[in-house]
């Protein structure tokens, strides 16, 4: 593990993103517009306060999942990954390089969307604002780690993009957004319990209801961080120095 290589990798990934103005625009604009849309669709008092933060947690997850799975797939198919694997670069350097670059991206996205939501759209958040950003960052990293893992199973970019709904939509359905988890059948409830996004949604709901940092919020953050680490370890196992 080398700090120089990790930071060089972060700089390289950010330079690639910066070059791609359209992707960058989509990363920032789409969540902002969706937030505005949500605000006016949910025109009942308090409804936006309940769902707005949840959406803020789901954006970075979904976006980082797609960006990472397509990004690492490109590294695999263009031969740059194989080339990197013949250099002193360690797997951890690559993973941390990605994590830092996408962490920065997730924070910029959250800053823009959060500012719009908290000022113009009048989102009323009970919990401290920094916890909103912390959870956003964790959700972004979770998406990144799962995206990295998923990219190992995709041969083409078409497939990689399709993995996003496959990974994200079942989790969203089971997260208690549409139907409260208490009302789900036992099997679905169990499935819901093991889905990391359930905890991301729950954490955001905690922030909208409680002014202080609750034990549940801490538990949610720990669960998300653990899932992220697990996915990262699984993803790292798919980066091979030797291939067939």
């Amino acid at each position: 593990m080398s700090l120089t290589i990790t930071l060089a990798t972060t700089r390289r990934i950010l330079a690639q993103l910066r070059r791609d103005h359209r992707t960058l625009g989509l990363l920032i604009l789409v969540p902002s517009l969706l937030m505005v849309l949500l605000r006016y669709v949910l025109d009942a008092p308090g409804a936006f306060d309940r769902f707005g933060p949840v959406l803020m947690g789901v954006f970075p997850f979904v976006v980082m999942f797609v960006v990472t799975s397509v990004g690492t797939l490109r590294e695999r198919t263009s031969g740059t990954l194989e080339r990197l694997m013949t250099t002193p670069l360690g797997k951890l350097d690559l993973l941390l390089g990605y994590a830092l670059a996408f962490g920065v991206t997730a924070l910029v996205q959250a800053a823009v969307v959060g500012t719009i939501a908290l000022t113009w759209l009048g989102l009323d958040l009970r919990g401290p604002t920094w916890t909103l950003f912390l959870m956003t960052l964790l959700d972004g990293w979770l998406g990144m780690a799962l995206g990295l893992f998923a990219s190992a199973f995709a041969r083409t970019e078409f497939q990689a993009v399709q993995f996003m709904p496959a990974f994200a939509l079942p989790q969203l359905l089971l997260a208690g957004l549409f139907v409260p988890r208490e009302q789900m059948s036992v099997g679905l409830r169990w499935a819901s319990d093991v889905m990391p996004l359930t905890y991301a949604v729950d954490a955001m709901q905690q922030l909208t209801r409680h002014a202080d940092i609750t034990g549940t919020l801490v538990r949610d953050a720990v669960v998300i961080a653990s899932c992220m680490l697990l996915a990262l370890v699984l993803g790292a196992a798919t980066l091979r120095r030797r291939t067939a």
Partner: protein
Amino acid sequence: MANHAVEADGLRVVRGGREVVRGLTFTVPQGAVVGLLGPSGCGKTTLMRAVVGVQIVAGGTVSVLGHPAGDRALRRRVAYATQNAAVYADLSVRENLRYFASVLGAPRGDADRVISEVGLGGEHDRLVSGLSGGQRGRVSLAIALLGEPELLVLDEPTVGLDPVLRGELWELFHDLAGRGVTLLVSSHVMDEASRCERLLLMREGELLADDTPEGLRASTGTADLEGAFLRVIQGRDQGQEAGA
């Protein structure tokens, strides 16, 4: 042995249930330019991948500069340029080289040095995606020249280049060899074979000849290498028929 950069003994590689490298034994002398020749699909690339240590091998050994191929100690000492340019298309020429220079721990000025060595002096700030195929290949080659590699493994480095540029690159290869660098260069162009000090001729996963260009011409009694190769292949086919 210290005077061999590469020593392969009974190397076998199986891909997709097919034996694509069939028990090859050969050496590459240090400080030599060795050509690896043979038709497309004969196993040249697989052999090179085994030398670099990114190929899962089924049997035999490859040792490179006194270490097993792919050893950690070789990651700065062996450089590899794949047939398809393994570069970041969405970065500029200079950004690509700066990134790999950081990964390899090469001095900062190295990026500019290798860019001019491959004749891309005026293209520093151009995006790789906007370059021609031949130019991209040269960016990929430039990356392999970063730092001070002792063994360069180059897969078809001169494909699609005009004769002048090809001549210049071969001069560069001989300059490097003069400084003690070993080069293993694959090609299917016969006039390039005559520029090598030794030739390895491959066909269908087997080594048909391992000789100097002069030795090959003499033993086959032909004036040109194209004819010599034909003679070797015919001789082998006849031998197989007689044996069967």
